[in-house]
């Protein structure tokens, strides 16, 4: 079980157990299944270009290799910035006290590119903080699930249903100006939009 989120608001500590909010637990899910002529489920596989090898689930792996084709163990890798310089490793924030900042403006939360949402189960919640959260105030704190090179930002929110942590990376949009007209191009930069068969 993951360590708790511990936050400090005005010198008082609050602690929450965390569970990832899974969409399928709220709404169920829709899955597209592929059936063979007998009505049984098919297995997805791959065929190499020369047709010589059928690749089934469990037959592949992936990793980093240098120019000579030598495998580089994950433990040797470090985080690099855009200039290729090493960046410091960021410790996990779980189980460690993090100060709360705020209340923040709602636009700060709207500018977050959310990666995960956690349900927070209070283990010891400061009554003042609880009141602020249920009144609609939102607070920011540093979050990092496990020690790595990519620290994230989290917002602590509350509503009638419970308390939640919205975790992600700030992604403020650019301002639009009259002189800067969006150019229509034939490049579709949204090609990474996933085909998702899970519907409402």
């Amino acid at each position, binding site marked *: 079980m993951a360590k708790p989120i511990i936050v400090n608001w005005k010198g008082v500590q609050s602690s929450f157990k965390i569970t990832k909010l899974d969409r399928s637990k709220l709404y169920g899910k829709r899955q597209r299944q592929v059936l063979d002529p007998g009505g049984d*489920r098919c297995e997805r*596989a791959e065929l190499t270009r020369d047709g010589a090898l059928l690749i089934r689930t469990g*037959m592949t792996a992936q990793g980093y290799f240098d120019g000579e084709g030598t495998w580089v163990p994950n433990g040797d890798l470090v985080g690099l*910035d855009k200039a290729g310089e090493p960046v410091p490793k960021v410790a996990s924030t779980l189980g460690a006290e993090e100060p709360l900042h705020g209340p923040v403006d709602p636009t700060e939360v709207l500018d977050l*590119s959310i990666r995960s949402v956690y349900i927070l189960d209070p283990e010891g919640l400061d009554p003042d903080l609880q009141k602020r959260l249920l009144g609609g105030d939102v607070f920011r704190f540093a979050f990092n699930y496990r020690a790595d090179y990519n620290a994230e930002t989290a917002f602590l929110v509350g509503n009638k249903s*419970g308390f939640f942590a919205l975790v992600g990376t700030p*992604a403020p949009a650019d*301002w*639009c100006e009259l002189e800067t007209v*969006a150019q229509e191009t034939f490049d579709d930069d949204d090609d990474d939009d996933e085909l998702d068969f899970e519907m409402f």
Partner: protein
Amino acid sequence: MRKIHLMNEASRDATIVIDTVKAESGPTMGLPGKKINFRRYLAATDTGLHEALVAAHGETYAQALIDGDPEIDVEQVGKFLTDTTPVFLSASGEVLHVSPHLVDVIFGPDGGERERKEASNIPGNVNDETPVRWTGRKLPRGQAITRFSFRRTIAVKHVDGLTYDFLYAMAKSLAEEDAMVMLGGGSKGKEPLIFQENGTPYRGFLEGRVDGPRYKLLLHLSNLELRVPDGAAS
């Protein structure tokens, strides 16, 4: 860039462009001063998979792996994989040479199957003849962020002077109200927004900000309420 056919509160519509707002990419994994590549490779062949090893050596085959490396085909394992073609295998493990039958299966929150039906393609609805329109539902920004998790944000942008005025006015009125308006697709303007065929349906909330002559008109997309599932602890 993609387009959206958008109607404002006064039922004026225009087709403008949209752009996904993306977070700046963080640090990448690597070795300082050395170029490395992330590659996919063959780690086992058919005979090295669990079922085959059980058939050949029994359920407890660990010692057999240590003694003779039967799971490694030295001629194949380690090959880099680049260009492959997806195929489907029938239940008997044969490559399917006919079109498979597609069904959509709906599962409830408890994981149980609720419905099974022929698969159908659901078209996108944001760049249709019918514009995406404002519903009557507005929420203060502060309330929206405590009720929904917004998974994606789309920036709505002008393509000329006329559409600048159109979008600026929308952004200004929403900013002044400190509200987000829910957008709806389809003829009645009540359907969730689908940006491409079979894409994820989202509830879209339009938010506006202005700074002098500059504006941001952002369509925040959500398919997740901030709600504790029944039976979950909180």
